[in-house]
């Protein structure tokens, strides 16, 4: 198959996105930013999945991506609810101040 863009480009981009996600997760203190970083990591992985799926003509990779998206959606729903609850009780979104489960 005549590919316009070689596989390695996708993988480098995927790795870059994932690394950005990891870095954001580690550095940022705002819970929402961390949350977004997690999404970024998931999407970085998704990109590599579809890239491989396209490359190998294997459908499984694309199906995995749908699963990941579904789980990510559910996770963001639950996560955002938790974040709102945290903000309501502690009036902050700084993770360093949210190190206790009990108040």
């Amino acid at each position, binding site marked *: 198959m005549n590919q316009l863009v070689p596989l390695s480009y996708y993988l480098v981009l995927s790795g870059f996105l994932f690394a950005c996600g990891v870095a954001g*997760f*580690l550095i940022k203190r705002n819970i929402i930013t961390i949350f977004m970083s997690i999404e970024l990591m998931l999407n970085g992985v998704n990109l590599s999945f579809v890239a491989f799926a396209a490359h190998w003509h294997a459908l499984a990779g694309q199906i995995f991506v749908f699963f990941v998206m579904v789980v990510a959606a559910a996770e963001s729903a639950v996560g955002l609810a938790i974040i709102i609850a945290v903000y309501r009780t502690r009036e902050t979104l700084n993770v360093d101040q949210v190190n206790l489960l009990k108040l």
Partner: protein
Amino acid sequence: MTSSLNLWLIPMLPLAGAAINGLLGKKSSRTAVSVVGLFFSGAAFVWALSVIWRISVEDLPYREYVAHWIRYGAIGAPGSFSADFALYLDQLSLIMLLVVTGVGFLIHIYSVGYMWDDPSYYRFFSYLNLFMFFMLTLVLANNYLLMFIGWEGVGLASYLLIGFWFTKDSAASAGKKAFIVNRIGDFGFLIALFLIIQNYHSLDFTKVFAQVQPVAPETAGAGLLTTIGILLMVGACGKSAQIPLYVWLPDAMEGPTPVSALIHAATMVTAGVYMVSRSHMIFERAPMALMVVAIIGTLTALFAATIGITQTDIKKVLAYSTVSQLGYMFMACGVGAFSAGIFHLMTHAFFKGLLFLGAGSVIHAVSGEQDMRQMGGLKSYIPWTFGTMLIATLAIAGIPPFAGFWSKDEILWKAYSSSHGSHVFWLVGVITAFITSFYMFRLLFMTFFGDYHGIQVDDHGRAHLAHGDDAHGHGEPHESPMVMLVPLMILALLSVVGGLVGIGNRFEHFLEPVFGTGFTEGTGEAASSVMEYSLMGISILVAFAGAFLAWFLYISKPYLPQKIADGLNGFYTAVLNKYYVDELYAKLFVKPLIDGSTSILWQGVDRKFIDDSVNSAADGARTISDNARHMQSGNLRSYAGWIAAGSAVVIAYMIWMGVR
């Protein structure tokens, strides 16, 4: 052979007594404890007597097999070895048996009176019975190994009884000293036993001696038998308090007085003499070892006697006297006159046991005082004690017809006439006899004559209890109760007549089956009887001279001794301090040992090496876990960071491997 004599009962009875008193005595009354203690030691005595009743001379030596013990290899096969719990009775062990059980029983009776007020009354009797068990095992053993058990056991009992009042520091250390000094001797004894095993493949007396008998005497030079003999003598030196290991015996006087009488005068300390006599077959074939025995004995006799002159503690005088008399016994063994040594052992058990019990009675009378300078004039207060002590003193001083005269004279004659003897031994022996007579009468005069120097006690008699534990503290000197006096009287009787069995060499003939005949007669028969009587005259003369000198110095001119002491300033101090032998040993052996143990073993090996390695292992573990602990901070992001770092490492590794 008659039917079984059940000899095993003799040692087992006191053991049963020891067990009963030791286990149940604490809750029992004093009367019950006394009954048990006396019954079991008395029963041993009665059984020993019944053995004599049932046995005839033809049956000796009698062997009794009790139980299997050590069996290695088939019997008789080369390299095999066996030792059983088996007993052996011949004339020699018979005499020891009677002395141990008889004197032991008398001292048990005496102890009832003497120890009645002691809070650990039951413990005392338990130990005393235990001692009897081990001593009888020693005496009746059929082989060296069983003998060694008894040998160590009496050491243990001696340790327990010396340190009986263990809350007193001096008593506790005296016990330890006795035990440790004895270990040195036992070391020699053990090596001798190893040599015997190696060369004769047995420890059985009969088997060993049967192999030794055909060997010619090692006259040319020191050989195997000489080595064994000298090592056995090292063991005997420890147990029987001979130079250079005698130092423990005077300290052992820290124990209760009946203990001093039983263990440290009459029985245990004579175990060495018994052992050497038992091994006569070995010694007779090793003239050099015999010479060593004789020299050690003679030196000890003289050396200890001179120390005895200066001591003021009544029990210390008797202790040095015991050392000196044991020296006589070894002198006899050393010139090959084993029967004379055993004879003296027997009479010594009577009169020295009596002297110690009498001293105990005196101490009892003056409320625990042991310093003779605080006594004096006790003759009228305690006449019975005085009478018996007088008899014992006459006996030990060698004044006829008391027991000590016969045995001591026998030894001196043998020292003079035996082929192994020498006139030097005789001369030193006579000088020692003079000194013995002097210090014994000095003791008698200082204690019983003159004026009473003791501090007069107050109304309730609780005044001056320097030696508190022995004390009773009631009023002026008083006679001991009957239970203490009766043993004194019986022993006094024995001290009078005990020597008569030696007249006409009857004692020697009795022991002939054991020791053989004609061995000791060296000089010509013709001259000997005239010679013997003149030598006897000399020793009697010397005994009276000693007594007279003591009378002169301590009764007639009581101010003289101090003057003489001042005149002999340096020498007197040296003797008074026992020639500084204890100090010398402390410098030579004890201090280097303690220093070495402290600086090398304790501070060096133990603390620097063992402690430090354990501590640094623990420290290292703590440091590592201290650092590792920081990883588990509870901070979510640091965990995430670790995960990221970890996966980065894994990925890097995989890439690296992939590249290769």
